[in-house]
């Protein structure tokens, strides 16, 4: 009986073989090669890491990368939260419509959307022209090729990644629970902070994690909307490889990025474990 069960288990596991093969060849092996390069090119040892961490430019780029990722995460959550709530609350048809608008923007070409922001934000762009037209400003605002350009563009691109998990966790909240809190004596404010936000926590966390991690490794938007003075890590890696063929330093940077991502993911799993949807639910 147990033999039968275990042989069945193996049969089920064999279904994983194709994807393991695929990921092994096209993800794991290149990744390992990359990691190895970081300690072997041009010579064996941790030289690349020492060089990186001793360079103030690199530290600045690393700091900037985290700053951008943090700001984008905060703005995307702040803007995505009310949007997700509207999608959940609106009558069925309108909620779906709103969700489709979000999805449609996600499905449009990234490059097209990023260039659109360039058109909108540049000094002779639509936004500046309107603001100057109504006399709000005399000189065009510098909205692109700097930090604000990157933040605006990336926040917009990341919003769907917050809205989708957040909306999923909001739609599982029973509105009667909020009424129950209110009749227990909780003001609208208390209901929001003591009941609603904690119940949205799984959605906020997974949305924020996704945005933060994706932002750390984002290339296209920062490259187009950012400036030289606030380069992000992925741009640095590209520059090292394309301009200087410096594979060792590039690999070391990438390794640091991967390590940081793993640490953040670990923290996320730790924090997440006390929420109602985590794995300890059924214990």
């Amino acid at each position, binding site marked *: 009986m147990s033999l039968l069960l275990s042989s069945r288990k193996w049969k089920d596991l064999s279904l994983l073989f194709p994807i393991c093969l695929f990921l092994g060849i096209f993800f794991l092996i290149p990744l390992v090669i990359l990691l190895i390069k970081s300690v072997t090119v041009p010579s064996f040892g941790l030289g690349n890491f020492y060089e990186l961490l001793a360079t103030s430019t690199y530290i600045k780029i690393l700091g900037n990368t985290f700053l951008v990722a943090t700001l984008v995460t905060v703005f995307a959550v702040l803007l995505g939260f009310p949007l997700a709530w509207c999608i959940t609350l609106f009558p069925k048809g309108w909620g779906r419509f709103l969700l489709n608008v979000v999805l449609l923007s996600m499905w449009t070409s990234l490059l097209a959307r990023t260039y659109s922001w360039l058109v909108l934000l540049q000094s002779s762009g639509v936004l500046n022209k309107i603001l100057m037209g109504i006399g709000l400003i005399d000189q065009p605002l510098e909205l692109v090729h700097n930090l604000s350009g990157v933040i605006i563009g990336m926040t917009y691109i990341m919003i769907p990644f917050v809205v989708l998990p957040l909306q999923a966790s909001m739609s599982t909240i*029973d509105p*009667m*629970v909020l*009424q*129950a*809190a*209110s*009749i*227990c*004596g*909780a*003001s*609208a404010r*208390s*209901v929001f902070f*003591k*009941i609603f936000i*904690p*119940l949205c*926590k799984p959605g906020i966390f997974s949305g924020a994690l996704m945005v933060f991690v994706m932002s750390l490794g984002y290339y296209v938007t920062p490259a187009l909307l950012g400036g030289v003075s606030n380069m992000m890590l992925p741009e640095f890696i590209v520059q090292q490889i394309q301009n200087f063929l410096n594979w060792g330093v590039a690999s070391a940077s990438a390794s640091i990025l991967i390590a940081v991502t793993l640490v953040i993911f670990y923290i996320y799993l730790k924090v997440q474990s006390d*929420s*109602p949807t985590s794995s300890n*639910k059924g214990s």
Partner: protein
Amino acid sequence: MTTQQSSAPLVTLKLLNKEYGRFTAVNKINLEIQQGEFLTFLGSSGSGKSTTLSMIAGFETPTSGEILLHNKSLINVPSHKRGIGMVFQHYSLFPHMSVRDNIGFPLDIRKTPKAERNKKVDDILKLVQLEDFAERPPTLLSGGQKQRVAIARALVYEPEILLMDEPLGALDKKLREDLQDELRQIHKRLGITIIYVTHDQDEAMRLSERIAIFKEGEIVGLGSGRNLYDSPPNAFVASFLGNSNFIKVRAVSTSEAQFEQQTLKFREQTTPIKTQADILLMVRPENLHVLSEQQAEQEPLTVEMNQIAATVEETVFLGESYTCSVVTESGQRLMSKYISKDHCEIAAGTDIVVRWNVNHTNVYDQWKQSDITKA
């Protein structure tokens, strides 16, 4: 105390009205709820009972009318300031808090000192017999346990009024009856005013001191269960509560009517029945006695008894009782219910007579066909 209670109701609903567009959910109802009473709103779905409860809780705003608590208007008081406790059909516990914190929530909101808060929570946990479950999350409780937590959460801050919206509707029959008994005990011990909503008439009978029967946004019957059952104010209440036999007849005087070849007597009504009016007589099945022709000869008909000749159509054994359906000459079908241990089964096709006491006859001169045909 008693006189004071009857003079100053705890809650008063005055011409309370709620419209959704052109649909009237609650139609200008008036109701006085006394301190300490257990009142049930009974009605089918869409009768306006839950909407009325929601208005008392403050979740719905009345289109017009007044809700008074201690003679002060509640209309502009938000629900979190009404000091009312409420238990919901689907428990509505806070899934991210333990049982203890769920129950402590209303006290935490009121910033009750820690020691007092913990004592109150412990006391109420004991009252609902959940001491052993205090640290669990509500997701790990059974339906009955969840509802007990919900009741504890609603009682812990000692509200004057407890609203219950079909709280036992999602539980199975046995558990429901246990919790009904528990609830009655809690009501007796705490003396709290309870307004209870249900569509289950047995539950209403079992629990409440007074029942308000809702139909299409109006209260069509109000009184004790016994009162409403024995002398329903109208044909709808008669048909809605329990089983009933309706006989359509024509009045020949203020206390007599003609049915087939027989004269049926009924009590004089406060507004006298007009001669030649079509009226409806209602007799409960347990008040309708079936006698064989021999028995009928042996027991002469007394003055306060009515009698109709009929034929047995079918007798069904239900354990403690039999139900016997009989048909008269003109096709009027009547149902009789009698205790099985005193009687034996009557074969189908037997000619019999049915008798009932004049005092067990209710008379209605106005009704709608839909009132007496059960959906």
